[in-house]
């Protein structure tokens, strides 16, 4: 447990310290959501039905930005070898890194999400739902993203590869998350969609650490 805490603290410090990754993701997120209404023309009413979907698409894209650094830096400078010889199984180390990624990037993105949703024309009353669903979905993005980042280890142009590997796996959370906002907009309870979103996160939480650790061992060999 102590080892996990040590690794987790280091990951958080690196995510916040190394050039403002979280702020970059939030800035990118806001830029995307400001661009869409401008590109779609000045009709907010026309945008409203797809606003939830666009917010979630922007969220998914912003979550990918800093994934390349998650394992690649540690692979390049040898720290991943050190991590593999530590007291914590590699699977748990992957989970710890994903959780730190969630807190460092997913958290700020979830705080930014209500602002982005309002920009897109969603009613301000739904802001808490937007933030909560973005926070749940962000954990799924971080877990699946960590798996994709591990799979892309050692390849040149890893960032692009991560996006291609990970984006298809982001389809379910985007569908469920946007579904929750849509149900809320039409006066229904968002709970079923949120439950599906949470189920995806649990599924990713079981699969991603094992797949990620296997990919790292493969890259180390």
């Amino acid at each position, binding site marked *: 447990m102590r*080892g996990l805490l*040590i*690794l987790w603290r*280091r990951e958080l*410090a*690196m995510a916040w*310290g*190394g*050039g403002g990754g979280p702020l970059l993701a939030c800035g990118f997120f806001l830029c995307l959501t400001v661009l869409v209404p401008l590109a779609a023309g000045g009709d907010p009413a026309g945008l409203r039905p797809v606003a939830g979907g666009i917010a979630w698409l922007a969220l998914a894209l912003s979550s990918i930005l800093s994934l390349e650094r998650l394992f690649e*830096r*540690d692979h*390049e*400078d*040898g*720290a*991943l*070898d*050190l*991590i*593999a*010889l*530590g*007291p914590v*199984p590699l699977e748990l180390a992957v989970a710890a890194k994903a959780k730190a990624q969630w807190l460092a990037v997913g958290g700020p993105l979830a705080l930014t999400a209500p602002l982005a949703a309002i920009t897109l024309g969603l009613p301000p009353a739904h802001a808490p739902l937007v933030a909560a669903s973005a926070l749940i979905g962000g954990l799924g993005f971080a877990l699946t993203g960590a798996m994709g980042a591990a799979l892309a280890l050692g390849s040149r142009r890893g960032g692009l590869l991560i996006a291609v590997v990970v984006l298809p796996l982001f389809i379910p959370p985007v569908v469920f998350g946007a579904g929750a906002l849509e149900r809320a907009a039409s006066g229904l309870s968002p709970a079923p969609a949120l439950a599906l979103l949470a189920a995806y996160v649990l599924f990713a939480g079981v699969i991603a650490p094992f797949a990620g650790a296997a990919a790292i*061992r493969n890259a*180390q*060999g």
Partner: protein
Amino acid sequence: MLTVSGLALARGERVLFRDFDLTLTSGEAVALSGANGAGKTSLLRAVAGFIRPEAGRIAFAGVEPSDARARHLHWLGHLDGLKGARRAREELTFQTSWLGADAAGVAAAADVLALEPLLDLEVRKLSAGQRRRLAFARLIAAPRPIWLLDEPFAPLDARWREAMGVLMQAHLDKGGAILAAVHDPLPIPARTVEIGR
């Protein structure tokens, strides 16, 4: 402490060596020598569990390999595992505490390696030799019996090579063991094992 028997390693399609045997006992240092590309680093990485052997066995006395790798091995390769953008103190704290060192051990390691003046600098400002000393601190601070070293002295000057020799001898005297890939002879009495032809 470590027994390697009938080991065969391959990188891609190329077989590096076959039927390699090695025994490492407590208090012993083994220097692996061989031409570039003979497989010194690959052998060390196989012992550390990073490479799966084609054939043969790597056994640690009294412990399962996975347990040995989590608690009994130190690995110091070409790469120091240090982050250029972080301060030396942060990296020292992470590397040592990750491997289970306590504060007293870290202080002792920093003292014996003369790291104190470096600790407030960013790692990228350190020279290669200073980085190597910083990475070496985890071997001193967190006691683990088997040291796997890959060209440990390449960036160090004569004075520090000698100082490292003293630290390695102290490790052997405490019952530890060292397996090192080297081109120059180790600064301590060591058995040399040739790899490849």
